[in-house]
């Protein structure tokens, strides 16, 4: 099999970091979870979402780029759209679970202190509107914003990938132009009941396309720059700066050391539109990662990192499971105990469940791969996490 542009061979680092990102997203999605202190969002501007979207873009280009070159845009495009459909179904499944949880809460929660908060349940009073809006991806409950973003990114991906394979620089430039236009003209998709998407797909596409661009040869072009000592110094300085700023979020205001002019300059750090500070923070992390975690890093083969790699290889299933586990974990915290030890237990049990599920899925795939009559498994079919 010959792949002229796409880097060949499985890059386990992608699986590893996507797996870790999935764990961090799970931890961050459990409200008031003490364990979420270890996640990267507390130490800088960007968080696990950036890692997840970047790697998803990278693997999408990797998997479908090959398909597009070998079998043409129609076949590759069809496969991308099928993937988008799978994610849509997964999202609606999660929405059903959310509705079950919120309905349960609606019937049991009558603390007069929270009369106002109970208005969240108003959505239940008009299921005709709410459910239709959810199907249209306009109504998105909390923590259910990432999959709709992913769906839109995949829907837009066939032409982008086509362009990436021919004129990668032009494709990246177009993506950047759209990003700039978003900031210039405040473009976003409408949401229900009001406002716009929490993760603006028109802005976040930049990270996805950048990941895809890296996969089709961009990483090689960037390598000299990424490995230069000057870049390393800048990246480290920026990470330290972000860390210091992040530190100021957790100190009482009385001892605030961030000067006002700087606050005016950097705030608000806009997650919805993928703030430049966040993007730069992700790039700085990436520079450090490619420098200190080489592709042939021996640890990648060790049993210690295997669980994360396993999760990263089944990202859609494990992501959805993580969203569900975060709901369930919060439910347990409310109904059983919100104590510190309970938060730790739920975090550990949740990650263990993600690993076990990933192992189970791998087992199923092996089973299918071996069973007679099934499609012959091409050596690279599971490359970088099976489908993107």
């Amino acid at each position: 099999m010959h792949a002229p542009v796409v880097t060949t061979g499985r890059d386990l680092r992608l699986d590893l970091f996507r797996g870790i990102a999935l764990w961090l997203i799970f931890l961050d999605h459990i409200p008031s979870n003490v364990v979420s202190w270890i996640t990267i969002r507390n130490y800088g501007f960007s968080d696990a979402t950036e890692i997840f979207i970047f790697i998803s873009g990278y693997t999408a280009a990797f998997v479908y780029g090959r398909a597009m070159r070998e079998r043409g845009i129609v076949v590759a495009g069809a496969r991308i759209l099928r993937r988008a459909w799978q994610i849509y179904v997964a999202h609606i499944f999660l929405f059903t679970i959310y509705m079950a949880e919120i309905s349960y809460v609606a019937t049991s929660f009558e603390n007069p202190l929270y009369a106002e908060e109970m208005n969240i349940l108003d959505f239940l009073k008009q299921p005709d509107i709410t459910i239709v809006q959810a199907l249209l991806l306009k109504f998105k409950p909390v923590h259910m914003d990432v999959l709709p973003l992913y769906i839109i990114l995949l829907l837009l991906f066939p032409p982008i990938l086509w362009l990436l394979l021919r004129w990668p620089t032009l494709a990246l430039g177009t993506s950047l132009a759209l990003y700039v236009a978003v900031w210039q003209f405040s473009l976003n998709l409408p949401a229900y009941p009001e406002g716009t998407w929490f993760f603006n797909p028109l802005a976040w596409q930049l990270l996805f396309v950048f990941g895809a661009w890296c996969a089709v040869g961009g990483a090689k072009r960037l390598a000299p720059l990424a490995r230069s000592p000057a870049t390393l110094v800048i990246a480290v300085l920026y990470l330290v700066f972000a860390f210091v700023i992040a530190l100021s979020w957790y100190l009482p205001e009385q001892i605030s050391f961030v000067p006002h002019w700087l606050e005016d300059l950097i705030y608000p750090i806009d997650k919805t539109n993928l703030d430049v500070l966040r993007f730069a923070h992700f790039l700085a992390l990436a520079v450090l990662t490619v420098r200190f975690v080489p592709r042939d890093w021996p640890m990648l083969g060790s049993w210690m990192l295997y669980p994360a790699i396993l999760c990263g290889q089944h990202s859609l299933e494990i992501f959805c499971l993580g969203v569900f586990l975060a709901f369930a974990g919060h439910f347990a915290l409310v109904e059983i105990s919100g104590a510190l030890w309970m938060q730790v237990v739920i975090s550990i049990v949740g990650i263990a469940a993600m690993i076990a599920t990933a192992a189970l899925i791998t087992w199923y795939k092996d089973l299918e791969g071996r069973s007679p009559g099934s499609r012959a498994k091409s050596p690279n079919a599971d490359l970088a996490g099976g489908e993107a």
Partner: protein
Amino acid sequence: MRAIIAVALAASALAGPALAVDPPSCAVPDNLLFVDNNLTRVETAAGKQHQLTISVLGTGSSTLAGTEGPSLAYPARLEAALNQRLSKVTVKVSTRTKIGQTADIMRRSMKDLLVGEKPDLVIWQTGTVDAIRRVELDEFRAALDDGVEALQAGGSDVMLMNMQYSPRTESMIPVGPYVEEMRAVAQQRGVPLFDRFAIMRYWSDEGAFDFYAAGKDNGLAQRVHDCLGRAIGALVIEDGHLQPFVNKASQ
């Protein structure tokens, strides 16, 4: 009797051990409450004219249900606490609460308030509805900025108050970013923020209240509002640089 308890507890909130009285100690550490802001209008009104008018502009969480509700909710408790602690000042707290209002809707009703009442201090409680409806953060922030500006231009001091800590609805209402936004606006505009979210979270962590409770416990809601009223009172006194009357009645 209630007033005496209120004073005793308010005093114990600043220093000394909790008294062995029914409401649990809901002392608030200084660093959660005070940020060195100045309520100049409050200082003048209370210090020189010996009267202070406060208006609470809020939504559903600024009141309690039932006929007795308003008199047990935090605005009334604040009035009681301030009148007790500032014996030489007549304090009046009025309320303008309407459930289900976003910051932007509330901002539009400010004109009436400023023309009609001209309060010395407006306590603007907001954010919950915005978080429920997931109003865009930019818009939320713009509404806060405009609102604070309008109130200040109208001659009132402003205090912002953010959301309640509500563990049961935490996975459904994304209060976090809205809490942050309010802190940022308060800091940049130099207005005090009554960080209800952090304070209630602290009470929860300390075991002062069980906010996980789902049942219809009116007592809990009343005690919480009583504590909120007194804590806000302490903040008004601190930032207005007022001299609280030292009460010996608790002895």
